[in-house]
């Protein structure tokens, strides 16, 4: 089973790379291939549509704001399950695509223990054992998997409410909401971390690449795995290079100043 999934993923990535391109420039690393990027945005678009159409029905306070976007209440009601279904399908592929790097590891538990230091930016560089995805990203991934399953089951129960007993809808209604709130919480953090909180991250999902500096800062173990170089050493070397350059510039300026005085 798992090998056939891997074979499928391999083929999908190869085919996607054949159609699309990823330009990796000097000092950059390939982070997300075309297949992953396309899947990510398909999931993202269908998620946002599901979220907005769902929250239109979620609360009377949002109903008037959000239903006009989708062409009125009845249309919102009609579209929401379809948005959700497409989200489920696209996420299923992303799930298979990311199953291997998302497996929970010991290092993730250590990451989770110092999540407070992470949020307050105490450490400039992540610990050496943080791999392709950190603990937080993995939690978000598995929260989506859990929510996705809950959405699917409760969504079908509410969609085909004439087949099932009436109390199924009343129960599903609450579970569907809980799954949505869980995902919304993760989504807020995800969007923030992917854009304003960690500059250089967003382009990994657009162009597919990140700078080496970004890689050794945020995912040192992954940096080491793809480049073969130690993340800490690379960081120290870059720091030395920077200070050397600065010193050289200062020296040159001093020289210039001296020449001016003569």
């Amino acid at each position, binding site marked *: 089973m798992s090998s056939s999934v891997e074979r499928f993923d391999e083929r999908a990535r190869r085919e996607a790379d054949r159609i699309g391109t990823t330009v990796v420039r000097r000092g950059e690393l390939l982070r997300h291939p075309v297949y992953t990027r396309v899947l990510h945005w398909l999931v993202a678009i269908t998620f946002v549509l599901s979220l907005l159409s769902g929250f239109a*029905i979620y609360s009377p306070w*949002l*109903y*008037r704001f959000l239903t006009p976007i989708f062409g009125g*209440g009845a249309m*919102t009601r009609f579209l929401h399950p379809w948005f959700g279904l497409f989200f489920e399908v696209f996420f299923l592929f992303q799930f298979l695509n990311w199953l291997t790097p998302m497996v929970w590891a010991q290092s993730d538990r250590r990451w989770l223990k110092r999540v407070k230091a992470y949020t307050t*930016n105490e450490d400039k560089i992540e610990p050496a054992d943080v791999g392709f995805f950190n603990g937080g990203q993995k939690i978000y991934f598995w929260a989506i998997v859990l929510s996705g399953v809950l959405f699917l089951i409760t969504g079908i129960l509410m969609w085909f409410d004439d087949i099932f007993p009436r109390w199924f809808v009343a129960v599903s209604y609450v579970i569907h909401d809980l799954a949505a*709130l869980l995902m919304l919480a993760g989504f807020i953090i995800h969007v923030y971390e992917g854009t304003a909180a*960690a500059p250089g991250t967003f382009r990994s999902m657009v162009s597919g690449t990140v700078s080496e500096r970004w890689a050794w800062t945020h995912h040192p173990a992954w940096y080491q795995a793809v480049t073969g170089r130690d993340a800490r050493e690379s*960081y120290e070397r870059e720091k030395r290079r920077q200070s050397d350059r600065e010193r050289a510039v200062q020296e040159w300026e001093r020289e210039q100043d001296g020449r001016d005085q003569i």
Partner: protein
Amino acid sequence: MSNPQVFQIQEISAHPGPVPGKGTQRAVQVCKYIDVTTCIGCKACEVACVEWNDHPFRETTFDDTYQTMPSTEWNYWNLIKFAEDERDGNLMWLMRKDQCMHCEDPGCLRACPADGAIIKYENGIVDFNQNNCIGCGYCISGCPFDIPKFNQKTKKVYKCTLCSDRVGQGLEPACIKACPTGCLHFGTKDDMVQIAGLRAKQLQEHSGFANAGVYDPQTIGGTHVIYVLHDINNPERYGLPKAPVIPPSYTYWKWLAKPAGLLMAGLGVLAVFFHRVAIGPRLPQPEQPAPIESQPDPIEAKRKEQP
């Protein structure tokens, strides 16, 4: 709906004596009272309902009873339910006219997410406005009596209106008008409760139904359709829930937990925004030196040093 209180006479010119009808209070709460003990199962009310509401003829379902179909339908709002029961070793045939109960605390209205799809009038009638209905079907699961029904073609939900169009014009509902035995009554809630109480007492004292009583379930604040039953302790025998309740999903969850969740989501957005403002981003390390333009100008700095 016309409002008779607006045209209630207050003063009359050159009129000797008191103004007739002055200061009278009109009871607005309406009620349908069904005496199941005098129902003969003629189904005249079913026909009257279909006729008045202009519903098309629909096929009936025969399932070894006298019942027209198993349950009310989107275009069949009034259905006499037949149940076979036993009393003193003899058959007792129970007939109950089933329709919307017009609850004081309507579960359908609590469950509905669409603005203006379900309305409750001052007089107690709960009415659906299909123009605003989005067809989600939540009302179906919110109703303790399984009354609202979905129409697959129009994708809207329908149910008995207590003939709000007739009541608004001062007429009684169509089913009441059609009843030949007088087991159906319509009037103010107070009057109906009183008549029903008298009838229940009569049944207790003169007809040997010691447990006869009025079905007006207080778990949902009472209903605007009340029954007199032979045995008030077992309304289940007539297919009525003893203590109907609205699922907590549409009460506590909808009006407490949902706004709380929304508030938390809003706070979450604010939290990440102020994280960026106060703590700032995690930049790739080592940070690139700032571009030369934004560094302090060394010449300018030197000039300041020299007076």
